[in-house]
């Protein structure tokens, strides 16, 4: 039997026995075949002694059982690692950050507790997947949309807690931004509700996020401070129509004003869908990986030779057809002064979707979960087996033209120097309000030597990005310490305050040890990594 670090075999067995009493024998998993399913199939440590593995897993059915398990863990110093559905492949999957932890698998807590059509909100348990929620909305005849990531097999709660993103309108597609109200089991086994949920009898838990006093929701984002057992979300009222357009400009120098104008139009709510910025002329070799941005005269010569746009700003509108057509007219007026500008539009999609439209559209842009990305990935680019997996390198960069060019050049140059493969590279993802996130997909291998090189290279990239002021917003467990290290202002005051909070709320350090670089006191100084 694998035993959590620092725990005797007998103590651990006794603890598991108490947990079995709490949840039922069949919901405690400690056999190798069962535990194999809790590995991170995209692990950069796959098959190595350091691979992060669970010692057991336990699947409670309700809040009371979660409380009972947490209390046992607290009494016996058993490290727990809560997961919702554990589907965030590329960011750690079901595996714990601290090897030997007991995975607290919340998949059985899969109830949609409330959908409020008038308030356009819902309250769900952590085991509710995007497919579950979509089915619930469809079968209940709801007029509400949810925003889904791609793929859509994960949990609303888990994805929001990790700050995942989707594709629909601002305010919804940044999944943490759409959260309103959290219930969590704390390390002492007590139950906390944030916001208006703290007021007994309140009917406004999913309306007013802040409640009174310090807003505590953030304590649970990417954290190790509680087991989230309920979460509220704002849902998007189904719009009447959708319009996708793009603006092509043809000079290197157009990027900065293009981004500035897109920012103004989005922040002013002239369009509400997810914008994008790409470079057709720099995506000739691989449409999902922008090549290095050359000097202005070189890029302008490439544009002249190919006829391809230097930059393309894509814009999406959701709303009444009459309104979004007027918005698009206004957008064209604002971009008309760009030399040689071209406007492109696709046919307006009327909603709800017709069967024909359903076949041709990118489903996540319409709040429809999909698994298609796995088969698309298999037809992807680069010389690697997509089934071996990938990780995401995702750093927040300035939302400006200079931000794109600087990040592109640094990443392209350094990845080439380090020999780090990228099969997708998009410097300006806009799931999250007011920022660009640079996304680079790095293939993972079932080969220890190649993965060692990958790990060393990614840590070097994290360090280099930090020197430019770019930090990751999310990362796989193997890089959490390095990513948190980059946030070093005030002699790492951010991490030190997080550690103080950890010590206060979870003094035995039983919850999600090491998550995003915050270790409990007894495992600091690299003791748990």
């Amino acid at each position, binding site marked *: 039997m694998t035993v959590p670090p620092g725990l005797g075999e007998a103590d651990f067995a006794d603890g598991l026995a108490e947990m079995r009493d709490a949840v039922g024998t069949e919901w405690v998993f400690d056999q190798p075949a069962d535990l194999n399913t809790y590995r991170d199939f995209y692990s950069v440590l796959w098959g190595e002694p350091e691979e992060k593995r669970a010692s057991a897993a336990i699947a409670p059915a309700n809040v009371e059982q979660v409380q009972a398990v947490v209390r046992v863990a607290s009494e016996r110093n058993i490290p727990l690692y809560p997961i919702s559905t554990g589907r965030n*492949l590329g960011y750690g999957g079901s595996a714990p950050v601290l090897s030997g932890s007991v995975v607290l698998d919340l998949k059985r807590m899969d109830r949609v507790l409330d959908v409020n059509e008038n308030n356009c909100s819902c309250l769900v348990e952590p085991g509710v997947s995007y497919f579950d929620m979509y089915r619930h909305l469809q079968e209940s005849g709801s007029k509400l949309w949810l925003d889904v990531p791609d793929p859509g097999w994960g949990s609303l709660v888990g994805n929001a807690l990790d700050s995942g993103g989707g594709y629909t309108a601002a305010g919804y597609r940044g999944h943490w931004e759409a959260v309103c109200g959290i219930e969590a089991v704390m390390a002492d086994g007590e139950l906390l509700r944030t916001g208006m949920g703290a007021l007994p009898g309140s009917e406004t838990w999913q309306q007013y996020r802040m409640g009174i006093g310090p807003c505590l929701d953030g304590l649970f984002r990417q954290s190790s401070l509680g087991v989230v057992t309920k979460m509220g979300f704002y849902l998007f009222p189904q719009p009447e129509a959708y319009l996708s357009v793009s603006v092509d400009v043809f000079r290197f120098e157009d990027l900065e004003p293009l981004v500035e104008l897109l920012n103004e139009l989005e922040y002013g709510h002239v369009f509400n869908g997810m914008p994008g910025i790409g470079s057709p002329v720099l995506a000739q070799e691989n449409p999902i990986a922008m090549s290095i941005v050359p000097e202005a005269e070189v890029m302008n010569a490439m544009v002249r030779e190919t006829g391809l746009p230097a930059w393309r700003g894509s814009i999406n509108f959701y709303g009444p057809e009459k309104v979004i057509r007027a918005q698009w007219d206004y957008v064209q007026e604002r971009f008309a002064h760009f030399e040689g500008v071209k406007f492109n539009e696709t046919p307006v999609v009327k909603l709800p979707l017709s069967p024909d439209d359903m076949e041709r559209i990118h489903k996540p842009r319409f709040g429809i979960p999909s698994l*298609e990305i796995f*088969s*698309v990935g*298999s037809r992807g680019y680069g010389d*690697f*087996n997509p*089934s071996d997996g990938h990780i995401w390198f995702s750093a927040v960069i300035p939302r400006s033209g200079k931000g794109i060019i600087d990040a592109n050049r640094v990443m392209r140059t350094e990845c080439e120097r380090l020999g780090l493969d990228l099969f997708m590279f998009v410097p300006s993802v806009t799931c999250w309000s007011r920022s660009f996130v640079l996304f680079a997909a790095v293939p993972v291998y079932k080969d220890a030597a190649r993965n060692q090189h990958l790990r060393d290279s990614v840590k070097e990239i994290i360090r280099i990005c930090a020197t430019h002021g770019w930090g990751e917003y999310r990362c796989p467990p193997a890089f959490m310490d390095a990513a948190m290290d980059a946030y070093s202002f005030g002699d790492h005051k951010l991490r030190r305050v997080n550690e103080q909070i950890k010590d206060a709320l979870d003094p035995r350090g039983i919850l999600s040890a090491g998550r995003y670089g915050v270790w409990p006191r007894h495992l600091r100084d690299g003791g748990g990594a």
Partner: protein
Amino acid sequence: MISRREVIKWGAAAPAFAACSHAAFASGVQGCDAFLLDQRFAAQVPQNHWGIPVMRFDGDVTGHWYQTIDPAWRQRGYVLGGITGSDALFVLETLAQQHGRRVVSRSQVGAADARGIAPVSWIIAPVHPSVVA
């Protein structure tokens, strides 16, 4: 947990799918409730030929997952067989784990392409007491 007898039965079935002859396939489907066929690799298998549903797709399993497999896996039982790309099997295997099911038999039935995607015949069966028939 799945019984030893069931493992042996399904373990024997997978090579029959691998052969992909009609006779062998017909003998292999006994005990399965449905088949999933990835037309990238197994287009020649007839539709619904042995009295069990044959679900066809082209790499993206979303439609069959939402319409058929997910609802079926919420109930007890439902043994699913298939010949698919290893990429599609990875998706199904990951989903199966959350529903108390596991790949109990798998056999690569053709060469992998340049990027490692190979056709695989497999059976996913319920293994957790909450879903075993």
